[in-house]
């Protein structure tokens, strides 16, 4: 499933990042890599940015970017 489909409070493991190589590099540098576990902290309304908790800190990305990240939901 896509990261953008997760609900607030759900946790997931990143499987694949699909984006421009520049953007993937940026996400990687900020700690979003394949295999990392993350948690959705909050979503801004009307498909606004999504706040994630990853590697012990909080990060916001846009909905469009979240649509390009494939994840596996963790229960």
């Amino acid at each position, binding site marked *: 499933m896509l990261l953008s489909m997760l609900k607030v409070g759900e946790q997931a493991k990143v499987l694949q990042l699909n984006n421009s190589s*520049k*953007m993937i*590099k*940026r*996400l*990687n*540098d*900020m*700690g979003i*890599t*394949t*295999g*990392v576990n993350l948690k959705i*902290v*909050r979503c*801004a*309304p*009307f*498909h*606004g*940015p999504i*706040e994630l908790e990853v*590697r*012990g*800190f*909080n*990060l*916001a*990305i*846009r909905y*469009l*970017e979240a649509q390009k990240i494939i994840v596996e939901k963790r229960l």
Partner: protein
Amino acid sequence: MKIALIGNPNSGKTTLFNALTGTYQKTGNWTGVTTESKLGVYKKDKTTQIVDLPGIYALDSKSPDEKVALEYLKENKPNAIINIVDGTNLERNLLLTTELLTLGIPLIIAVNMCDELEKNGFEFNSNALSNKLGVPVVTISALKGKNIDVLIKESRKLKSPLKRQNLGSIEKRFEYIESVLVGVIDKKKTKSQIATERLDKILMDKVWGVPIFFFVMALIYFLSISIGSVLGDFIENFFCAFSISTKISLDKIGAKSWISGLLCDSIINGVGTVLAFLPQILILFALLTIIEQSGYASRIAFILDRFLSVFGLGGKSIIPMTVCCGCTVTGLTATRTIENKSERELTTFLSPFMPCGAKMAVFGWFSAKFFNGNPFIATSMYFLSVLVIAISGLILKKTKRFCGNGNFVLEIPTLRIPSLKDIFFVLWEKTKDFVLKAGSVIFLTSIALWVLINFGFYGYTDGNIELSFLFNIGQILKYLFYPLGFFSWETAVSVLTGLMAKEAIIETLEIVSDDYTALFLNGWSVYSFMSFVLLAPPCMASIFTAKKELCNKRVFVLTLVFQTLVAYVVAFVINLMGYLWKNGLLLYLIVVIILMLIVILLIRNMKISKKEKENAV
């Protein structure tokens, strides 16, 4: 010996730099406060140079402010690197360290915010970290200046290390870091992180987040105007008394009347009028600094990102725009943290519309003189500027240049209680800037104005202002502003001096005019003048900053033309509304506009349904 400070954005490099060098550079709790490298000298040993570099996440970054750090390392090989890492966020901070280790430059790790860790009962094993990474580690608190001298002492002892192999893919590097951190620190949340989570639930609420933001900004404006004007009156009265007493004593010793005129009426009064706005500006800056330092600015960026993308801007545009409420020059340098080019340029284009401290001084003066000091008049300027930015954004987004909506990765830092020391420093710097400005630009315009008033084509005017150069200049210029409703020569001249510094507008009007009510037709034209001041290209200093940030002459010229045009049109519309209101026609106009909108919508709908029909066929 040259030491470079390197680390992730918002890890406290600038705070450390300030503590080491005893100087003051701007800090804040958002990523990317430092956008250029700054050189300083260690205060306890002048032979040690310290360089503060913009924060970077990795060594081959593409964003313009991050490039500065990388280029610096490559070109001026420093003798040592202090890699400053945020102790509350080690996992990501150490990623950069793994890259720095491959450079072959002597390196020491400074783990910052160790006081925060101690307070929360964390046990941090710096020896274990040092052994595992093979480089010295010092725990420091940049804010409290703890251990910073040990850090410098240790970094002097560093020897040239062997170049290390790159660890390979990013996943492998994070795996390595995870293995390093085992036994160094436990993974749990600090108290302030838990408090942040609770506060964020309110500050970033889906429904309440935006109203809270608008309330906070309006409150900041309201407080600085209302409290500031009370304190400002004291200063103004002081200078008034000073001017009168100087005049009396000059008359006593028999000085020529033009000398006391120049000194008392022009210089002392001119400088006094401008200094009277110091309290307003200081309160404004203190409150804006709290917003930056606490980390609220990043929350604002989060809640407003979706909303701002409608206007071709992004959440990160809000930081430069908020800073522009204080000063356009600092605000424009903050645009560099926006990665996306079209959003960055549009922010540079539009944020000068924000009412900066100097403009606010002008509005304060106008509302005191024309609207009985009603604080809502000046506060309404803030909303007018937001409205103009929104409409211009909507229009400009349709152009090819600004259509691209880009990427956005924003760190949401832990909320922090702002340090009084930093707020004090900001206020001190601003006071210095402001007094210097009053002493230089305002002083010189005072003299220039005096010359232009007292001399004309036939020499010394001897008090007859209608023979002066200034009067003649104003006579020509005033026709330009006829459609805007302020057609006295005095206002025309003040617009010109306002280009130097916005405060000069008040100064000019105070010097050249005795009866302010005669300058304007009615309240509407005063408001039209205020909106022209708000939107017209700001002072020279910020025009030059905009040129530097845009790096493109064509876009820069376009910016100036656009801003002047917008200012002219908006002021014209306000004046027109006033005219119609006076003649009882405003209501008709509104009805006509609504009817026109309905007709346009109907035609559009018909066109769409026609297309659908064609498609169906």
